[in-house]
């Protein structure tokens, strides 16, 4: 008796620490420390390359040195006879479909008749050691007959151009037709026509791709490695081996970064390792080294974009016309449409006019094969390219009108009820103008902005400061009909919880955020939730970890799963408390009476009772987001169900003599719907901005005759701590009805408007517009020289 009283007092003390309002959130909205950080700071977390496979063979790929060539003959006998070589494989050894790809399986596991880019896979070797495998690659003789190659989308569209694929080089066209652009331009007081270009970009995730394929006696095969889309990997490996999907088990290892790149690369390396394991009946480990990754894996699509925009004197936007030449490279990857509005290309076309109300719009986008590496997913998925265009264009338009670019944007940008280029009415969660105002205040924009200097002013100084801004919008999830997301949540009798889910942890903090959502929904603590590593044999289909979809879609699936077990849990609590279940609240490991919170029990006692009574302990959630729509002929529809919005403002200092640009400061405000974990959201913001800074000033692959000239970190710079500006992240919450607790995606948005914010700041500092990324010092310096020469 006494013991029970004591326990009750203890419970009451604990209750005092709980939020007084029953419906107030206690875990969501707080910056819980990430659940994987403790192991990461101690070097204890095992990544793919840290796992030991003592008897595994080493797999290697022989790659094409030609951008486009017929394979006349492959001689593998010498390699096969080398002691220690287990197997040498070519196209003829693929038992099933010789092709993989995230959308269309047009990339050969091993090229049979021809190669389409430098780095294409031609043969595979499995050997006892790395040295032997490398030696064996040298012993394979391939006779090529080089073909004429195409290296730009515009060139590839010419009728006489060499064909990369038999069906022709134009992979797809997407367009927007809205209003009457001719009429719009007739009524315009000012029209601007410009052409922009952006280069191929490598993700440069720091952890190299690595995988191990392990065959089992029953014919199943396990593939283990860092991946962003284990279910896509599974879906690709099964047909390559000609076995049912349920015989392929894909197991996730923690990612040392992905940024979209490990969506494609894990299919590539996974399918090849699986093929070697299938033939050798032994485990095969494969690792791509740094230069091999840059050489062979997917990139951010390069684009050439021609644009025309018309505006009234008062700043009202009237008409927009755009043409996108989107270079797909050798293989389709994530370029083409996944109905109705998925795929990089459609996304780029839809986003090109920007977050502005424009009544008349024509956009034509051509997605074109070339003999370059292929474009895939990279943080922003087609949006960073077109954002650079619309934000550069509107900035220059403001200059032409003699307006503050902030005011021109404020006048035309989206708000609740606005109609987008695709005719979608934005009927909820539109905080764009709010982000503009918050950024303006924090940056002190109205004090800092003044028109770009005239020539005389420019000559006076050695260094000049300038400010620039850019807006951005980005969808949550991927605009496809096939966008279901499942989760299982298992409550155990001691109140602890197992979360079975397939979103991968790549540094973004997904496991932490999803644990917070599960804990909040069930009324347990975040420590009570154990996230089971994505393993396709164990967790339900979740779709890929891409498109800023994880928090929203998986969060919703978890809420559905939680709901299923919470009802019986509250019934059990009701049994114990003698209070009807509808008056009970579960929070912070307690279940208590809404009307008298002192009447409560520990949640684990209710869980124990549920177990004892045989009540449901397993919850299943399957969330399907609102169905997207898009007519590819007219570009009209509602391609994505909600958008995240942002405003970024940059201050730069340009060295007039050298053209070197230093980014001093960036203020960035985001409408995130709801920040489930504010520190993790800030981390996404800061990291995305830094990657955007690289896009603006230094990154980009240089290709000559189809050969990448800057394969490694030394030749292709990415930002270091020396480039880090002061970043002020600001979060604004306009909750979406479609998100868990109102949350929208945040992974990609920060990366999108940084480049134009910086290049607009450069223009503001020195009066030189940047039309081609990156704005490296030679380009900026040439711009300054060009401007100074105009005075003669």
């Amino acid at each position, binding site marked *: 008796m006494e013991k029970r009283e004591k326990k009750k007092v203890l419970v009451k003390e604990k209750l005092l620490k709980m939020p007084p309002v029953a419906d107030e959130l206690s875990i969501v909205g707080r910056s819980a420390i990430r659940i994987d950080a403790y192991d990461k700071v*101690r*070097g204890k977390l095992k990544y793919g390359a840290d796992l030991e496979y003592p008897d595994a063979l080493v797999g290697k790929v022989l790659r094409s040195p030609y951008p486009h060539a017929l394979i006349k003959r492959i001689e593998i006998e010498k390699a096969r006879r080398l002691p220690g070589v287990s197997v040498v494989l070519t196209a003829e050894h693929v038992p099933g479909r010789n092709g993989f790809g995230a959308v269309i399986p047009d990339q050969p596991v091993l090229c049979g008749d021809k190669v389409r880019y430098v780095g294409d896979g031609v043969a595979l070797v499995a050997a006892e050691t790395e040295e032997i495998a490398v030696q064996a690659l040298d012993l394979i003789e391939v006779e090529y007959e080089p073909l004429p190659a195409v290296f730009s989308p515009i060139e590839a569209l010419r009728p006489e151009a060499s064909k990369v694929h038999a069906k022709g080089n134009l992979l797809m066209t997407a367009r927007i037709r809205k209003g009457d652009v001719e009429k719009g331009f007739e009524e315009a007081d000012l029209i601007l026509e410009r052409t922009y270009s952006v280069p191929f970009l490598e993700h440069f995730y720091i952890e190299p791709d690595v995988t191990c394929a392990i065959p089992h006696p029953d014919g199943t095969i396990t593939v283990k490695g860092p991946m962003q889309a284990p279910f896509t990997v599974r879906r690709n490996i099964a047909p390559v081996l000609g076995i049912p999907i349920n015989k392929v088990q894909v197991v996730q290892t923690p990612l040392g*970064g992905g940024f979209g790149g490990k969506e494609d690369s894990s299919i590539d390396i996974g399918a090849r390792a699986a093929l070697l394991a299938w033939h050798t009946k032994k485990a095969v480990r494969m690792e791509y080294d740094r230069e091999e990754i840059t050489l062979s894996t997917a990139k951010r699509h390069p684009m050439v974009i021609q644009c025309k925009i018309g505006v009234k004197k008062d700043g009202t936007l009237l008409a927009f016309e755009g043409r996108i030449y989107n270079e797909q490279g050798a293989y389709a990857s994530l370029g083409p449409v996944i109905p109705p509005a998925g795929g990089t290309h459609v996304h780029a076309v839809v986003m090109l006019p920007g977050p502005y109300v424009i009544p008349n719009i024509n956009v034509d986008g051509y997605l074109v094969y070339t003999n370059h590496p292929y474009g895939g997913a990279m943080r922003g998925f087609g949006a960073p390219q077109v954002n650079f265009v619309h934000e550069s264009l509107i900035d220059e338009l403001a200059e032409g009108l003699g307006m503050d670019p902030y005011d021109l944007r404020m006048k035309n940008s989206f708000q609740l009820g606005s109609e987008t280029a695709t005719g979608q009415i934005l009927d909820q969660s539109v905080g764009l103008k709010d982000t503009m105002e918050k950024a303006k205040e924090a940056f002190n924009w109205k004090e800092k902005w003044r028109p770009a200097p005239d020539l005389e002013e420019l000559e006076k100084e050695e260094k000049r400061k300038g400010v620039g801004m850019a807006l951005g919008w980005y969808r949550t999830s991927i605009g496809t009909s096939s966008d279901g997301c499942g989760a299982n949540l298992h409550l155990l009798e001691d109140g602890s919880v197992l979360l079975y889910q397939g979103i991968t942890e790549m*540094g973004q903090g997904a496991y932490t955020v999803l644990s917070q959502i599960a804990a909040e929904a069930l009324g347990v603590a975040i420590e009570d939730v154990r996230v089971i590593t994505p393993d396709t044999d164990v967790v339900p289909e979740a779709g890929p970890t891409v498109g800023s979809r994880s928090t929203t879609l998986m969060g919703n699936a978890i809420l559905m799963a939680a709901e299923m077990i919470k009802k019986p849990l509250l019934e059990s609590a009701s049994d114990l408390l003698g209070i009807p279940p509808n008056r009970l609240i579960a929070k912070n490991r307690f279940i208590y009476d809404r009307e008298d919170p002192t009447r409560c029990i520990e949640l684990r006692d209710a869980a124990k009772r549920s177990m004892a009574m045989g009540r449901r302990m397993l919850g299943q959630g399957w969330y399907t987001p609102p169905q997207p729509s898009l007519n590819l002929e007219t570009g009209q529809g509602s391609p994505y169900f909600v958008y995240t919005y942002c405003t970024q403002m940059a201050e730069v200092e340009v060295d007039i003599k050298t053209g070197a640009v230093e980014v001093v400061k960036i203020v960035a405000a985001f409408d995130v719907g709801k920040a489930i974990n504010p520190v*993790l959201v800030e981390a996404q913001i800061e990291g995305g901005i830094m990657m955007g800074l690289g896009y603006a000033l230094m990154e980009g692959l240089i290709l000559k005759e189809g050969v990448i000239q800057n394969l490694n*970190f030394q030749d292709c710079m990415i930002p270091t701590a020396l480039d*880090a500006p002061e970043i002020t992240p600001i979060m604004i919450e306009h909750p979406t009805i479609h998100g868990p607790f109102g949350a929208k995606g945040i992974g990609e948005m920060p990366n999108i408007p940084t480049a134009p914010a910086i290049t607009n700041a450069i223009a503001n500092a020195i009066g030189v517009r940047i039309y081609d990324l990156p704005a490296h010092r030679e380009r900026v310096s040439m711009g300054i020289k060009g401007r100074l020469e105009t005075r003669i």
Partner: protein
Amino acid sequence: MGVMAKSQIHMEVNGKRVSVEVEPQELLVDVLRERLGLTGTKVGCREGECGACSVLFDGRVVPSCLIPAMKTDGREITTIEGLEQNGELHPLQREFLNRGAVQCGFCTPGMLLSAKNLLDENPKPTLQQIREAISGVLCRCTGYQKIIQAIQAVSETMEGKKV
């Protein structure tokens, strides 16, 4: 054989004496990861550019992918696994945790060791000195800001003392 002979090296790794027989071309990073099981030291490029493999070599941060194992004979090596003392996180580890300075975690060991090297030599670094000290380690996730803030926080609590 001759010059290609294996040799026995003795070094102190995370305070413990170890002896390993190494090949002439063998690199420190591989000895640490494969022979000693210290996989906290990461490999990102094998070209000395990314800093993921950074370790302390007699207290100074070096990319272990460029160091021939033979050169470590008689030297002291500290890897990320050696940063904790008696189960207690180093103040840098604690601040990295608390301030959200860890994302994918692949650069974290190199960052922590670079920061330790800096604070050991200069307990009160300026912002620019912090930036320089960690500029040899590439991070693609964080934007560096939270890492820099974590190092500043440790420096402030140290009040000029060694940690």
